């Protein structure tokens, strides 16, 4: 009997451990089955990526449809190149979709927002998004605003 209660206690302990890992997976980290889903890769070039990081979200209409997988500098054109992994289930994005680097809540994390275009062709693995809008850099904005004010005055 003593051996049996011992084994039951150990079994219960392992079960609680298993429940903990399931809880952490589903409830805390929001791991869903499609996060390890297959993806296809799309490239976009930005004048300025302004603080975007790898693993940032890629959204369309506010819904996450992929992640940023890589960021590097194009050594010939001197623009930032962002590679994104888009989930395969969203395979009907049009080839003239536009991408913008946005900021969550004004000061929060940077993410990429895509806007669907009108073309009938779809983005596929290796496609490039040509219509891009760089991150808003506050210093540039202020500078432009000041220059505009100065030139407006007689």
């Amino acid at each position: 009997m003593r051996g049996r209660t011992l084994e039951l206690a150990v079994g219960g302990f392992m079960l609680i451990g298993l429940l903990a890992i399931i809880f952490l997976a589903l409830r805390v980290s929001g791991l869903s089955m499609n996060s390890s889903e297959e993806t296809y890769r799309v490239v976009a070039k930005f004048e300025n990526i302004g603080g975007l990081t790898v693993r940032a979200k890629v959204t369309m209409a506010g819904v996450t449809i992929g992640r940023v997988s890589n960021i590097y500098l194009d050594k010939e054109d001197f623009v930032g190149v962002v590679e994104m992994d888009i989930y395969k289930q969203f395979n009907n994005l049009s080839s003239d979709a536009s991408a913008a680097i946005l900021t969550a809540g004004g000061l929060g994390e940077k993410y990429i927002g895509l806007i669907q275009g009108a073309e009938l062709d779809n983005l596929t693995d290796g496609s490039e998004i040509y219509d891009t809008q760089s991150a808003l850099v506050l210093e540039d904005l202020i500078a432009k605003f000041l220059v505009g004010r100065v030139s407006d005055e007689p």
Partner: protein
Amino acid sequence: MIERIAALGRSGLDILEAMGRSGMVLFHALWAWPNVRTSFPLLVKQIYAVGVLSMVIIVVSGLFIGMVLALQGYNILNRYGSEQALGQMVALTLLRELGPVVTALLFAGRAGSALTAEIGLMKTTEQLASMEMIGVDPLRRIVSPRFWAGFICMPTLALIFSSVGVLGAYAVGVLWLGVDGGSFWSNMQGSVEWGEDVMNGFIKSVVFGVVVTWIAVFQGYDTVPTSEGISRSTTRTVVYASLAVLGLDFILTAVMFGEL
């Protein structure tokens, strides 16, 4: 002056020798995994002693640390009107740092010291020697199942600690202080990454489990066979294990999260 340097060199050699001996203990204990029929019941028994008996302190500490984090976090976040970020703050703190580290420290104090005292007592009462005379290697019979039990239990306890902590934070943040439950969970899910946060915390707890159990088992096996010797090695286990955990935590954090 020369004497001082010589003493320094001697203690350096002593430390190196102790490390060598502890490595040999580990190697001998794990070198051959004896047959499953006899060793599995031993392992179950040790998981009970090391894991199940540590559950109470882990669950209670996890609950309270989660609740305190929620209370403190709420007060700070409330000033910036962003108390809905409470969930992510608590979850990240627990998963990345407090879960593995606090569990390892409690584990060293609860299970590690018990392991050292138990093995030390076995040595002092000649149980290890008599086992050897019967023809059973005490490293395999005594040390090996205890080591594996620590290896299995420590990460499990850390997972339980973090889970209970999150639930404690939920109780305080959502049920008591009135943070919106939906945003509590969704903010948490939005920022906690399975691979980045949960798995890295898990890896940390595995490393801490190995180190703490190793230190505990070795200190017991290497104890001076007197009652004074046992009390000294038990103290050493807690001190060395705690220092090792904190030091390794810095190194692991630097490697895992340092570049982000």
